[in-house]
């Protein structure tokens, strides 16, 4: 029975770990970019600018904000061929236009949509693989939950990010079980757990007190 449980734990640890490993790598590698505010870029960062005429009579958008505004912008952006997660929309009072940021991991698009009608300007910037990882690490994030996840793929990513977090918790617990079976390694293991706890709580205490 114990051997069966051990085998099951070991297999779960192995297979769940293998499935989750690419996601763990995404979160781990992007830490270096986020912690040092540094993104390696390869290739030209030159933006692609295009103008789309007669996109919409967008005057009705004046009265909207938050999620209803994002929902109303969906078909307009679709006609402009812009897809992705819509961010916080700004109203440029001076130009009477909406500034709409749209993100696909690794690409940032900004749509300037005149509310009185006229040409919409679409600026697309390819930001590369590192930026994609950083975007995914921060998505959906804690801010503006009312407007976030307005794109199917971002909703799907949130599910996967959650799954990765649960997998890390589960795998760490199963890993403890697998280590504990190794009697010869218990003393070193306990010493490392205590050293890790001391480092973690010591740092957390120093930062917050």
């Amino acid at each position: 029975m114990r051997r069966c449980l051990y085998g099951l734990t070991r297999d779960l640890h192995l297979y769940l770990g293998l499935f989750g490993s690419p996601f763990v790598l995404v979160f781990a590698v992007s830490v270096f970019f986020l912690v040092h505010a540094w993104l390696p870029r390869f290739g030209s960062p030159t933006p692609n600018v295009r103008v789309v005429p007669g996109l919409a009579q967008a005057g009705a958008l004046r009265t909207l904000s938050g999620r209803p505004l994002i929902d109303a912008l969906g078909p307009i952006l679709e006609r402009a061929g812009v897809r992705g997660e819509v961010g916080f929309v700004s109203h440029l009072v001076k130009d009477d236009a909406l500034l709409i940021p749209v993100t696909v991991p690794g690409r940032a698009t900004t749509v300037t949509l005149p509310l009185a009608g006229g040409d919409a300007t679409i600026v697309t910037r390819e930001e590369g693989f590192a930026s994609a990882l950083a975007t995914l690490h921060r998505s959906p994030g804690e801010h503006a939950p009312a407007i976030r996840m307005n794109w199917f793929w971002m909703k799907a990513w949130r599910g996967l990010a959650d799954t990765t977090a649960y997998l890390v918790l589960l795998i760490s617990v199963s890993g403890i079980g697998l280590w504990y079976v190794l009697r010869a390694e218990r003393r070193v293991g306990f010493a490392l757990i205590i050293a890790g706890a001391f480092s973690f709580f010591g740092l957390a205490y120093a930062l917050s007190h």
Partner: protein
Amino acid sequence: MHLATEPTAAGTAPPSSRLRVRLEQWNRKLHYYAGLFLLFFLWLFAATGLVLNHPTWSFADSWSRRTDTNSEHAITAPGPGSNGDLAQARDIMRQLGIQGEILWTTTRTNAGRFDFQVRRPGHFYFLKADLGNGRVSLRHSRVNPLGVMKALHVFSGVQLDDPRQSRDWGLTTVWAFSMDAVAAGLVFMVLSSLYMWWELPGKRLAGGIVLGLGTLVCGLFCLGLRWMY
């Protein structure tokens, strides 16, 4: 077939095989040594990652449960030795006994007025200094332990999309390099686990399918979406 976590004996195998066995042993040992040392860090980042992904979870809303303290303080206006906003902010913080990471949130338009924020996990200081009259109004917001944990997840002193922010507190730098170490440890654990899996011929096919599935799904988000849209 040996178990993934069982020690293997070097025995009387040839030198190259012994070396390989030792490599396997140390790879396995370092895998769980790293995991055990990083355990609390991993739990922090995994648990707070979930909470940050779900800002609508009511139990996780630490900001609305904060405690605010407002106070007014007399200060000596930063002297001529305090050149620049950073030096002036540090001078005011020293006078008020505040430590933390300075956050620039407003553009300074009046030489006599100086508004800035100072943050450290669990504490938010909002300072409005009237340098001409030597007064500072201070709002100090404190959040609960969950708020401290959430802050630790994102506390790096810099922001990708705001080049004005830079680390100016020593402990932020220590924490930032701790996060680097955790990330490096995770990368090592993933690579060492791939090696351990590969050393189990009986599990290569099933493991390869699972790993391939994970890579495919993850690759879709990292690379594929840009091609599709």
